[in-house]
């Protein structure tokens, strides 16, 4: 399969990327690692006229400890997150989850910013960003702005990014509670999660339980009210509207969410 024709443009700097995007308007799309976008383009689910390759902007690839938070450049690859000593010490959830994205080849190309900007509810890192209360930094023609992860995912493959805006950094506060877990249920290692559950302290997020990555608000409320893991997990599917597809029925996804949440909360508690 070959994508429909498009014009390839390569950005050498963030400013150049923004200029190219402004010129392309609604017909342009940023290309980072391309491991979410190119497969969609082959299937004609995405047909951008202009691809703006930001993959060489080395200035957007970093993991740094800053005052009270970890700053991750949007072009940091899954492979680099997986092997980061800083993340292993400070945010083991992110390093672990990044190491379960796709397969080694995918992790050599795919980036955290690309995964978040793609906004796929079946991807792992959007839910991880939600559970970690991340703040996303976007650059546009009129400057930078910060968007809370909880405000970022707005619909099916839709995010709060405006046309031409470029996700540049992910800021993750140091977790208040250390316990974490990521439970990912797949048929094959390389598949998207049929359901995934991410826990950091009392914050719980769900993978592939609706059209948008979401926090499990019912579970969080129960935990805050003092419920134990098993009782809190019973609320995992509340407010979710998972699809039925070849992977699983809606009822099975709801069942999985409850089971995986119970496991995740138990594992997180064991790491506190």
């Amino acid at each position: 399969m070959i994508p429909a024709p498009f014009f390839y443009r390569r950005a050498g700097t963030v400013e150049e990327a923004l200029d190219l995007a402004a010129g392309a308007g609604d017909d342009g799309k940023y290309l980072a690692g391309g491991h979410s976008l190119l497969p969609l383009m082959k299937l004609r689910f995405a047909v951008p006229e202009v691809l703006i390759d930001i993959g060489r902007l080395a200035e957007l690839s970093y993991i740094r400890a800053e005052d009270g938070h970890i700053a991750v450049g949007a072009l940091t690859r899954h492979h680099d997150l997986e092997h980061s000593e800083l993340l292993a010490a400070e945010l083991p959830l992110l390093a672990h989850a990044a190491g379960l994205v796709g397969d080694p080849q995918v992790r050599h190309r795919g980036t955290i910013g690309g995964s978040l900007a793609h906004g796929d509810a079946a991807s792992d890192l959007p839910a991880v960003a939600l559970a970690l209360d991340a703040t996303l930094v976007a650059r546009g023609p009129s400057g930078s702005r910060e968007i809370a992860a909880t405000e970022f995912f707005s619909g099916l493959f839709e995010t709060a990014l405006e046309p031409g805006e470029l996700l540049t950094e992910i800021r993750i506060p140091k977790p208040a509670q250390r316990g974490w877990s990521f439970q990912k249920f797949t048929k094959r290692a390389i598949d998207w999660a049929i359901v995934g559950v991410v826990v950091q302290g009392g914050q719980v997020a769900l993978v592939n339980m609706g059209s948008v990555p979401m926090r499990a608000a019912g579970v969080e409320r129960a935990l805050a009210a003092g419920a134990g893991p098993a009782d809190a997990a019973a609320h995992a599917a509340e407010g979710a509207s998972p699809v039925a597809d070849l992977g699983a029925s809606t009822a099975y996804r709801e069942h999985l969410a409850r089971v995986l949440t119970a496991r995740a909360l138990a594992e997180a508690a064991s790491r506190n």
Partner: protein
Amino acid sequence: MKVAISVNGRQVEAEVEDRLLLAHFVREQAGLTATNIGCDTTSCGACTVLLDGESVKSCTVLAAQADGHEVTTCEGLAGADGRWHAVQQGFHAEHGLQCGFCTPGMMMAAVSLLAENPDPTEEEVRTGLEGNLCRCTGYHNIVRAVLAAARDGQPAAEAS
């Protein structure tokens, strides 16, 4: 657009469509057909090559993204004197193939795996090859082949 990609140390320059995939560039512009195209959906790993020494699925990389970079395919594994790479020797000695379609991709994934982890456990080999499917399901001998390559100790560093 014009791209120039080093393929197995040979500079290959071509005027190509912007949408050309690296897998097609390697097969058609560079004329190297060991790299197979299997699923075309980033799943099977048959098209795995090294891009700057790291395994990638060349059906999901644009030739334009590899412009100016170094690609290594299965044909580039043997030394200039014709001596096989340790991974090739391992696949030969352990019969790490059945029909052979997945083999070039398996070998390139193995080279990348051993470059990152020269002394893997059996489990690490299995998880390290999770991006490559063998529809003959000949995984046991493939894993033995990679472990043999690691034991022979000429890890992939020289190819990366």
